[in-house]
């Protein structure tokens, strides 16, 4: 009986603690969302907590009226897709041969790749390289330098090597080339891993900021992170057309910044349920490897 009551108390305390942890996760985002949706007087009066007070969507009107914001969003989406497709292609091309234990020179290739996980030239030599390649202010500066992650490649290589060899062998004896085997047999068996790694690449690209800061000065090529960085930290106003001019002058910088932050969060939240599912299987694959 005593044990039962104690267990019950334990459960109650546990549930409360988890609930608090969940709240801690959500409150900062809810607060920003509320600021972005509240009236100026409510914000300045310190009356905004985690729900909107005196609903006001002017800040969103300004953000969405700014064509460069929308363009940056579309640009980042395109960039993410192209980057992810190319990254996956290269990762597969490296991981498949290196998953073959009998491949001559395999250890040499692996050493070359793994070494880059421990040592790198760093920011300035990277910058000089990009500059020398003529990629400053070029779309490809955001794609090529980070194209293959050695870690992702090893995760995929490890996964490939767990596939039963017999599957490939029979096809090989039947005269199928490695390309056919890769496309027809290996890749279809690896779809969950491929999805996971694609998402690793995609989210990484979506959220990454440093390369754009270093390599891009042309605002047409601003990824969304750089764009909102300028609004949040440099107090830059969105570019607005003449009609909305009045709107923005009445707008608090706080609510504008909040709306910009939300502008960058919303796409992530929209695909989040899907993200989560594949990401967790991905971290597991990584864990097994480690």
């Amino acid at each position, binding site marked *: 009986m005593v*044990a039962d009551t104690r*267990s019950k108390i*334990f459960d109650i305390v*546990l549930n409360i*603690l*988890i*609930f608090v*942890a*969940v709240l801690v*996760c959500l409150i*900062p985002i809810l*607060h*920003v969302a509320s*600021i972005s949706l509240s009236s100026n007087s409510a*914000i300045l009066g*310190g009356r*905004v*907590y985690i729900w909107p007070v005196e609903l006001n969507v002017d800040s969103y009107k300004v953000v969405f009226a700014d064509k460069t914001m929308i363009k940056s969003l579309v640009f980042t989406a395109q960039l993410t897709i192209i980057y992810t497709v190319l990254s996956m292609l290269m990762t597969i*091309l*490296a991981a*498949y*041969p290196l998953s*073959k234990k009998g491949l001559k020179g395999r250890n040499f290739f692996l050493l070359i790749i793994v070494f880059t996980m*421990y040592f790198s*030239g*760093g*920011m*300035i*030599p*990277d910058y*000089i*390289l990009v500059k020398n390649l003529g990629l400053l202010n070029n779309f490809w500066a955001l794609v*090529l330098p980070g194209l*293959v992650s050695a870690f992702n490649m090893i995760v995929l290589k490890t996964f490939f090597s767990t596939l039963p060899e017999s599957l490939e062998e029979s096809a090989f004896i039947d005269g199928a080339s*490695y390309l056919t085997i890769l496309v027809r047999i290996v890749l279809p068996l690896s779809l969950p891993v491929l999805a996971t790694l694609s998402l690793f690449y995609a989210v990484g690209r979506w*959220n*990454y*900021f*440093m390369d754009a*800061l*270093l390599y891009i000065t042309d605002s047409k090529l601003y990824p969304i*992170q750089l764009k*909102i960085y300028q609004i*949040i*930290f440099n107090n830059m106003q969105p570019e607005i057309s003449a009609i909305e001019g009045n709107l923005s002058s009445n707008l608090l910088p*706080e609510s504008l*910044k*909040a709306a910009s*932050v939300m502008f*960058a*969060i919303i796409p*992530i939240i929209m695909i*989040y*349920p899907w993200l*989560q599912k594949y*990401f*967790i299987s991905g*971290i*597991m694959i990584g*864990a097994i490897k480690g």
Partner: protein
Amino acid sequence: MNLAPNIAVKNTGVKQRKRKFIAYMSQHYLLYIFLILPMAYFFIFKYIPMYGLLIAFKDYNVFQGIWGSPWNNFATFKEIFGMKDFYRAVRNTLLLNALDLIAGFPAPIILAIMLSELKNKTYKKISQTILYLPHFLSWIVIGGIVIQLFSTQTGLINVLLKKMGMGPVEFLSKKNNWLLVYVASGVWQSAGWNAIIYLAAIAGINPELYEAATVDGAGRLRKIWHVTLPCIKPTIIILLILNVGRIAQIGFDRPYAMGNYFVTEVSDVISTFVYRVGLRSGRFSTATAVGFFQSVVGMVFLLTANYIAEKFGEQGIW
């Protein structure tokens, strides 16, 4: 019986090896073709910058290029070891990482144990989904959230403090407060996500151990202490070692997005220092030397940590 072919091999060794190689290649050449592009990538974008590290030992001049610039007899290194800001950046890198480790390392372990004890599966699943969310936000976005949340006038924290009759606290412009915010943001971003690995370790514990503990009359807290924790100890130790191994390395996005003019004294780390000196002031050689220093130290730490972790792994960790 076995000797005969061996002698034959000896006689025609080179020829046969060549023939074997050709036979091997004609069967497997496609694999090498696959490798061309990725290896080219690693060569161009990873190894050429390593060659670029040479400018740390030279007076780099854009017009003369990496090779043509004159050697400077370690003058760059003498220069950086005489810079106050360099030591500050090193200290801050270690300081921020150490604080991150102290606060951020136990958090996911505690969270994972709590989550694994939850009985209601739906509640568990929903909680996990929400707890993982911050991991998917960029540091720029988190920096934006932090500015809003801790703003002295309109931020939630200060609004609440004012309600309780406490004056506005300048969280972002006072050094110690800023450190607190920096560490808290790290825990907020990663505690839930990092709990996954411990959850997996806990899920792998043999249920018979818990049954035996129940028979012995152990309560739930005792079971956590005597079963769960000892069972995930290897995971904890390996992750701790690997995390300590990363103590000399720091990303750019987070300190850059979180730092501000008033707290440079504690927020300027190696990556932001390299950016400022190299790309803002154009002192490429100096910045490269700093980066080189970090790369080497970081590599030594990482390799040592990996070595120790592997040793532990082999022994099954006491």
